[in-house]
């Protein structure tokens, strides 16, 4: 213990006053902080966990710091001849090595704490109005990184014990810890589909990400702890082997015994990891609240539905999606209990272990890899790839509603955006999936070949038509509307006169030939709108934001139909926005003489004859027009957690006559930093330049003090 303490203190002291270590630390902090800020910007508005981003950013750089701090700790003793004194002193190699290792690990841990200042100190200073950041949230991530750091330090110590040249030892550590495993993983990922299935991301990144979310897989922990122990054991034996330099039999025996122990340890580590992986031994961090934050929509559905609903996760525990799904379902179960609404009973059925349940579900036609929601005799299966909070909430909602499905006809033949396409710019498949889960049936409708809109059409959707409808088509739609039809029009980008422009003008709305732009933007080209009208569609969206990309402003016109139409703005820009006539020339500036000033209406609802027709039990005509068809394409919905999807869903629900606009489906735990571009640059400068520079200067001062004082 004495030796251990002495060498730990000595190693830490040497590192703290080492110019190389100070430089390495500054580089580590600069690189890691840069990665963190970059990842933070990308994750803004998504449901990513801040502490997971923090931990993932250090996965690649931490071994490099470990390589720098450990490369000299044994190699220098060998090179300078101090090893002779160490071996002749009354101490054991193990104590000496453990002391060296722990000194380096302590230094590494302190540098991780310094890196912790980036999210805990720099981020709150640079960002205003963002999500709150608490130290306790980062403790699991810190522990996860400490495991990884310990393994890196142990391998660095082993390299330093084996290779007398410090730089070569450092290079060997960098190759052995981050590069070689990553290269093996990439090679296996490319060659084997099964690896792709089991490890969709680099396992260490996944471990760090899970740790950030407060979950520790025993498999990873076992691998790291045993890896650390084996590396230190081998390093200790490498030093001990120096005593056998002239004894062929002795050194052979030592090598063989070491190899046997390492092999046995490796086998044990693999077995423990496989066993833990199969049985999914996962520890959850006790300080953290594990229930995921659910959206207002989900909480509302859970509170409004009653009776017992059973959710069965029919999935192998070895499946990579199992853990996330299990966590989501358990969270829903707890949230349902808190909401005092439906009694959600969650069940897990592994096809290889729970045979009776597996047989029951298979006989009922349920396939493996689904989550089954059952209520009485009704059942909804959600494929595991689609399972998320929104899908589960939709399934619960559908089970609580009557079994009928509203049919939505989607026009085709005019360059419309397709609900079957996965294209991020013109595809609406993400939205279509959500609508189907909500109980809608989507059908394509070729207007050119039809003489009338089908009788069963609940809502007719014209999403981004680029060419005008013919007179016959317009007349057909007009006739549909006069019968109390419901129309949902999304204006195509830069084509305000296409589609049903003439028809819409007759019903009281037209799109202006401008593009709405505003200083309130996320990436410079888009526009963030937070001003919602007082309407069933937008009432629940207060406090959220809808993001448009090249939206055409809408204006109210005098209806020619002869019937009074109510025009209600749904979404407006703020005063700083204006209608830009030429978006191809930057910078955009408003020409006050020709271009309209904000606030501009970007989405509007029209209702005709609501009062008397309601009295007569007839359907009033309803039209919703949004000036931007791309606001609900796949790319817009996947990039950020905005309220675009909710606006579309609520508008469709209002048009379908459900009059049951739901709360926003945006998850409650969306990552919001509230940083604009200036704040991001400021944070990057502080975290990747100022903080590393301060630490380097501190280390430099200590090194100079040691050298000259």
């Amino acid at each position, binding site marked *: 213990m004495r030796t251990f303490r002495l060498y730990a203190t000595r190693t830490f002291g040497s590192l703290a006053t080492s110019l190389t270590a100070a430089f390495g630390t500054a580089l580590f902090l600069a690189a890691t902080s840069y990665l963190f800020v970059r990842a933070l910007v990308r994750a803004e508005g998504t449901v990513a966990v801040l502490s997971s981003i923090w931990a993932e950013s250090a996965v690649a750089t931490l071994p490099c710091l470990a390589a720098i701090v450990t490369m000299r700790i044994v190699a220098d003793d060998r090179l300078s001849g101090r090893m002779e*004194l160490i071996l*002749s002193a009354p101490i054991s190699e193990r104590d000496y090595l453990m002391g060296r290792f722990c000194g380096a690990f302590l230094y590494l841990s302190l540098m991780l704490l310094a890196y912790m200042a980036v999210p805990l100190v720099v981020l709150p200073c640079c960002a205003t109005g963002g999500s709150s950041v608490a130290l306790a949230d980062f403790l699991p991530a810190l522990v996860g990184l400490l495991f990884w750091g310990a393994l890196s330090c142990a391998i660095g110590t082993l390299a330093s014990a084996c290779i007398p040249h410090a730089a070569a030892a450092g290079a060997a550590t960098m190759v052995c810890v981050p590069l070689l495993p990553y290269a093996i993983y990439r090679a296996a990922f490319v060659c084997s589909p099964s690896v792709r299935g089991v490890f969709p991301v680099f396992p260490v990144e996944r471990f760090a990400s899970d740790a950030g979310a407060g979950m520790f897989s025993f498999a990873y922990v076992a691998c790291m702890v045993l890896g650390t122990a084996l590396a230190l054991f081998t390093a200790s034996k490498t030093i001990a082997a120096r005593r056998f330099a002239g*004894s062929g039999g002795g050194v052979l025996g030592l090598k063989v015994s070491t190899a046997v122990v390492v092999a046995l340890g490796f086998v044990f580590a693999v077995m423990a990891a496989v066993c833990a992986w199969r049985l999914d031994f996962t520890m959850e961090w006790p300080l953290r609240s594990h229930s995921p934050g659910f959206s207002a929509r989900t909480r509302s559905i859970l509170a409004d539905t009653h009776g017992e609903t059973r959710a069965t996760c029919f999935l192998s525990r070895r499946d990579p999606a199992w853990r996330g799904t299990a966590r989501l379902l358990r969270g829903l179960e707890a949230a349902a209990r808190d909401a005092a609404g439906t009694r959600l009973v969650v069940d897990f059925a592994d096809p290889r272990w729970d045979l009776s349940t597996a047989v029951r579900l298979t006989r009922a036609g349920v396939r493996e890899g689904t989550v089954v929601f059952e209520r009485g005799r009704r059942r909804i299966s959600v494929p595991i790839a689609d399972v998320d909070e929104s899908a589960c909430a939709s399934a619960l909602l559908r089970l609580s509603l009557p079994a009928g499905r509203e049919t939505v006809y989607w026009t085709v033949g005019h360059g419309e955006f397709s609900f079957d396409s996965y294209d991020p710019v013109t595809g609406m498949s993400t939205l279509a999936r959500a609508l189907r889960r909500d109980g809608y049936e989507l059908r394509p409708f070729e207007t050119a070949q039809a003489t009338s809109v089908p009788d069963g059409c609940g809502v007719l959707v014209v999403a981004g038509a680029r060419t005008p409808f013919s007179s016959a088509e317009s007349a057909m739609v007009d006739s549909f509307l006069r019968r109390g039809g419901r129309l949902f029009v999304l204006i195509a980008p830069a084509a305000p006169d296409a589609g049903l422009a003439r028809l819409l003008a007759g019903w009281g709305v037209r799109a202006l030939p401008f593009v709405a732009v505003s200083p309130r933007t996320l990436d410079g080209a888009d526009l963030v709108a937070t001003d919602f009208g007082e309407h069933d569609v937008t009432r629940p969206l207060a406090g959220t934001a809808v993001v448009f990309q090249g939206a055409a402003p809408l204006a109210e016109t005098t209806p020619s139909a002869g019937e009074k139409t109510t025009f209600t703005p749904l979404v407006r820009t703020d005063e700083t926005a204006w209608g830009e006539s030429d978006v191809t020339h930057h910078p955009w500036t408003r020409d006050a003489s020709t271009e309209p000033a904000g606030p501009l209406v970007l989405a509007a609802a029209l209702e005709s004859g609501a009062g008397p027709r309601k009295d007569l039990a007839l359907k009033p005509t309803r039209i919703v027009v949004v000036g931007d068809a791309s606001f609900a394409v796949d790319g817009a919905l996947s990039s950020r957690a905005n309220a675009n999807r909710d606006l579309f869903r609520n508008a469709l629900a209002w048009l379908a006559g459900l009059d049951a606009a739901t709360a926003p489906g945006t998850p409650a735990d969306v990552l919001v930093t509230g940083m604009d571009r200036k704040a991001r640059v400021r944070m990057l400068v502080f975290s990747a330049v100022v903080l590393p520079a301060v630490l380097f200067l501190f280390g430099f001062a200590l090194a100079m003090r040691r*050298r000259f004082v």
Partner: protein
Amino acid sequence: MLEARGISFAYARRQVLDGATFSVASGETVALVGANGAGKTTLMRILAGILLPSSGQLRADGFNAFRETLRFRRLLGYMPEQTPVEPELTVKAYLKFRARLKGEQVRKIRHRVLEAMEACSLGDLADTRIRLLSHGQRRRVALAEALLLRPRFLLADDLFAGIDPATRQSLGQTLAAFSQFASVVVSGHELEDLGRVASRFLVLKDGRIAEAGNAAAARKALGT
């Protein structure tokens, strides 16, 4: 008493020691001499427990030093051929660190360090960083380190290498004063200087030890 019997050692295929046998009584100082590459440093390292021989025994005060290694190392002071001291530490800090490492009680460390520094005439250099010392001064630091806990067995490899005559004399006097309580083995090439501190010579030739009474006999045995 330090007693080596049949110590053999080989680097790969080269036999360096071939059944070296000798003994050093308590209070006796012997000089180990030999040509370059004869195996002096290897033998000293084996005696210090740094290397294990392929065969042979080493008994220290009756116990097997190769088996009870930690016990033997507690009684041992070793001054290696090189001077592997910590360059960034002061002389006093280095000796304190080594004293603690060797297991000395905290309350006695200060006394031990002062005693060793005084014995090696290092009092003026106590607060000087080791990297600023000359080679001779560093050798004195290394000797002070070896003498720290008043070891029962002292091994000084190439004691006078690169040392000026005045320092040799000083080191010789220190060693002579110390050797009254311990078994001392010093190695080197300076037969005359070694003759002043050692009572007899051990000549290492062809991996074996031959006894020589004085420097002249040793020179004769070496054939120089």
